């Protein structure tokens, strides 16, 4: 299958600090990639570079045959192809759930309210909370908020979904409801990059697992192989730590 996302020798600096060190990554259309690694290893930085929330300093990033450059039209096109889900949900607190979903449609794509509301309800159904449509984010549980955030991204009908630790801010009993939605999404063939420490999710839904440490991709392997026979010692150490919890 053709490449959907491709990072070639990407570097990223914060001042003197090198957050991404020669990172290369290929993601095919429909592929599900889980990214893991210790805190501060550059996982967030990498996926944030993919939709230009951070600017990479060197190397190339290609998304759906567009290269990510200074060109704002290019950036807009790439953001159109990509949806992103954040650890802290980042819902708009001043808007109701349904308005959170319709805002971009109405303001950026000029859809009518009725049409975008229909679309919003479709996606709220997909994440199993159509009955919360009229509530405000602060009235929802964490799990519900994160599902709204997923629906808000899906609503823009992206080709790729990026998840940055989508369950890390959730209470344990709410993690499953969010992961279930993500697994459904994976089964429908969405191209996904998921930064997570939920190895259960990785085993169930990922085609490929990438392990990062100190800004580098240390290991990248098909899921089965990644867990059964990791090559690098750093990966083995990380896995032994994370799987014992």
């Amino acid at each position, binding site marked *: 299958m053709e490449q959907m996302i491709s990072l070639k020798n990407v570097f990223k600096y914060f001042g003197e600090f090198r957050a991404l060190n020669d990172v290369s990554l290929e993601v095919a259309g429909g592929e599900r990639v889980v990214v893991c690694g210790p805190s501060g290893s550059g996982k967030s930085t990498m996926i944030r570079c993919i*939709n*230009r*929330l951070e600017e990479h300093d060197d190397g190339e990033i290609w998304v759906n045959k567009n290269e990510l450059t200074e060109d704002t039209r290019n950036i*807009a096109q790439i*953001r*159109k192809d*990509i*949806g*992103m889900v*954040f650890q*802290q949900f*980042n*819902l*708009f*607190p*001043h*808007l109701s759930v349904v308005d959170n979903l319709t*805002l*971009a449609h109405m*303001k*950026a*794509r000029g859809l009518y309210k009725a049409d975008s509301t229909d679309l919003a309800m479709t996606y709220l159904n997909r994440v199993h909370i159509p009955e919360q449509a009229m509530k*405000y*984010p*602060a*009235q929802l549980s964490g799990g519900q908020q994160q599902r709204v*955030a997923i629906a*808000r*991204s899906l*609503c*823009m009908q992206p080709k790729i979904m990026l998840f940055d630790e989508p369950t890390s801010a959730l209470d344990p009993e709410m993690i499953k409801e969010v992961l279930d939605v993500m697994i459904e999404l994976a089964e429908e063939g969405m191209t996904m990059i998921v930064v997570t420490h939920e190895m259960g999710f990785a085993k169930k839904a990922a085609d490929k697992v990438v392990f990062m440490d100190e800004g580098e991709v240390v290991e990248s392997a098909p899921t089965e192989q990644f867990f059964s026979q990791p090559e690098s010692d750093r990966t083995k150490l990380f896995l032994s730590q994370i799987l014992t919890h």
Partner: protein
Amino acid sequence: MRRKPKSAVTRAVDIIVIAVAIFLVGYIIHKVDTVMIYEWHWDFLWEYILRWDEEQQAYAPNLLLKGLTATFGLVIWSMLLASVIGIVMGIMRTSSRIFFRTVSRLYVEFIRNMPPVVFIFVFFFFLSSQFVPLLGIDQLSVDASPQTIAVLEILLGPPELFANVISGIICLALFEGAYITEIIRAGIQSIDKGQTEAGQSIGLSRFQTLRWIIFPQAVRKVLPPLAGQFITLIKDSSILALISIQELTFLAQEVAYSTQYVFEVWLFVAGVYFCICYSLAFLFTRLEKRTHRIYQS
């Protein structure tokens, strides 16, 4: 927001402050009454508010009421203009372009580090000698059609004072705009970065993110400091008396000179300013409560 119940200490402090204030006021009145042997003349004020026009056979506003209307016009237009300046400059303050940031920074620093009176003297000279003739504002009352003049009269007061009032409005708005700029900047920056990122990630442009996500949230946060600044603006409008803008303070001065009832006139004027400022504060408190109810977070 629910208020914390006051502790016994703060309540005691409150009582002491009030007691001292009452004592001072009483003492002053007593002094004025006994030592100065001052005879109060309050009723003359009426004729300076409304006077009987023999020709028209009707009541017409006199100096104090004219001044009050002028102050109202001045203040309302300055508030609007200052808000526009403040919003534009405040957004520029948070821009990623260094040029915009520098321009608005210079504006804010220039004004914040100058006494209002000095600023107004400097700027009024520039305005009235350069800017007003340039825009043809001084010719407005001569050249414009009667309809235009009629509209402007409602908005700005008597035609012969257009140039005078417009200069005053611009001066005041430029001065207060700097403080509003800082309030808006703080409001924008108080909104979590994640909001902007979420907006961008769903395809909103920078401006759309600002307009539909950041601004609605920032407005709620800036209402209290904005109310404070508007009240300051009302009070500062009296400085315009120094450049002969015919507003309440300026005309009150004339009344005080001509009648010699200095105490009465200034106490009355103080009371008027107090009422305006206090009602505005009250209005804003209501508004704040309403916006609070709209979304809870």
